């Protein structure tokens, strides 16, 4: 048996068996932030399955990095878990509420903060307006269309969120005048104004240079840790996975291939896993 196979077997032994549990408590009695059981997902009848019976439980306050090669299904899983891509089959519970027809109810969605790879800021609006957009979906949300019509306390909270990501001084700057790293921080601030219990991020540092990416992840993870927010993010960067997540879940061909505490892994082991994937 060669080294690579032995290594894989060693990693596989660490896999967490996510057997189905009742309600919203994990096996150790902890509260679950998110859980899914036997989730299947395909985008078309011809395209085949993207997710193939994925089961996962994520505790409240946990931080999880979803890793895997391109096409492994990690982004699809992330989006399916919060109802952005309805699942074909399986059971998903988010913050104690089950997805109905693959969709998340609005009051649950309000407790989730989203950060995307390409920040998704409205380029011609100020950083402040973009952060206030985080309030969309809340009651009276038409006042979140633009900072000039937002209630004073929303503006204040948005400024505080910008301060938290180190960009209070850029509140008036238009999004198209910000650097890539600054734009991603504004996107994080937009998620923060929702005071989320769960933060979801799809490759938040993928479009940034290594140093900026590390800074953004540092900001992101430390804010989540301070507020006790559950954090789930996808990444291709092994260093980001190991440094900012307590737990690493790896997908291979739409299946969970590895589910392990990050403290038990080295970057080399993860790299090797990737090369075999």
């Amino acid at each position: 048996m060669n080294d690579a196979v032995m290594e894989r077997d060693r990693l596989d032994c660490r896999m967490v068996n996510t057997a189905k549990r009742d309600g919203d408590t994990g096996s150790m009695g902890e509260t679950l932030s998110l859980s899914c059981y036997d989730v299947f997902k395909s985008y078309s009848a011809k395209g085949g399955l993207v997710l193939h019976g994925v089961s996962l439980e994520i505790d409240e306050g946990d931080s999880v990095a979803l890793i895997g090669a391109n096409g492994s299904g990690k982004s699809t899983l992330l989006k399916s878990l919060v109802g952005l891509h309805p699942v074909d089959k399986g059971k998903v519970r988010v913050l104690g509420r089950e997805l109905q027809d693959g969709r998340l109810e609005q009051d649950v969605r309000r407790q989730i903060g989203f950060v995307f790879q390409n920040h998704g800021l409205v380029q011609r609006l100020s950083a402040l307006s973009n952060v206030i957009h985080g309030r969309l979906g809340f009651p009276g949300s038409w006042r979140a269309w633009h900072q000039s019509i937002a209630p004073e306390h929303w503006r204040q909270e948005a400024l505080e969120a910008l301060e938290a990501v180190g960009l209070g001084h850029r509140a008036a700057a238009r999004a198209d005048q910000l650097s890539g790293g600054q734009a991603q921080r504004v996107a994080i601030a937009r998620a923060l104004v929702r005071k989320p219990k769960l933060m979801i991020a799809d490759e938040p540092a993928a479009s940034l240079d290594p140093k900026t990416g590390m800074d953004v992840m540092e900001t992101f993870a430390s804010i989540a840790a301070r507020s006790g927010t559950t954090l789930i993010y996808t990444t291709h960067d092994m260093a980001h996975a190991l440094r900012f997540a307590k737990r690493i879940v790896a997908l291979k061909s739409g299946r969970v291939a590895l589910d392990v505490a990050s403290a038990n892994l080295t970057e080399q082991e993860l790299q090797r896993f990737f090369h075999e994937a």
Partner: protein
Amino acid sequence: MRHDTPTLAGPTSITPPARFAGASALQFALLIGVGALVLSSIYQVAPSPERLVTGAPRMANLLGRMMPPATDSTFLLRIVGQLIETFQIAIAGTFIGIALSLPIAWLSARGVTPVPAFSFLFKGLVSFFRTVPDLVWALVFVATVGLGAVAGTMTIIADTIGFCGRFFCESMEDADKKPQEALSATGANRLAILFSAIIPDTLPSLINAGLFALEKAVRASVVLGLVGAGGIGQELQVAFDLFQYQKASTIIIVIFVVVLAMEVLTNALRKRVG
């Protein structure tokens, strides 16, 4: 000492584009058909050299009778009144037209509309408004609401919906999708996405299209009077009907100045939009 003589590269695998090998029978027939259409049109309706030669002295005579332009104060005062009405037709028609174009464009824009199954209906409506010429709309509205400025305003509204409805729709379809997806993930509804992401993103092109519509409306509103739909055009028609060519020349000069001023103004405004 022996030097290798550089040689041309040998045959390559690159295939050059084919040379023109002559038209096929179908292409040749089409070419003949199009040529015949153009030539017959020119022969039947284009001015012949003889007509140009005989028409030139008449044109000179008309221009002579137009000079000098009428400048009596009563007439000029009336022209100013008609000019204000023309502007009112253009401004009211463009404003209402733009206000109606925005929701119609939103409902018809692919990937943006909240009613994707019915978007074709709104697209069809915009096409209908656009394909009917403004003078035809003016005739229709004069027949339905009577002579005067109201018919003119309704004509400009219809014309603006046809123009702005299409441009607004295309701008919305081309708007950056990433912010829309990000806001949709937060639970924002379609209306919130329109006002928070799509309109801010497309604002320069919406303003540009709106300014073009205004410029177009000013030009259109000066001729709407020719079919009785109010404005300065009505005065021009009366001047020609009564052979008051000096008054007609004043009106033409005023129209020229106004349209030119509007073009300069909208061009300056467009440059400021960024």
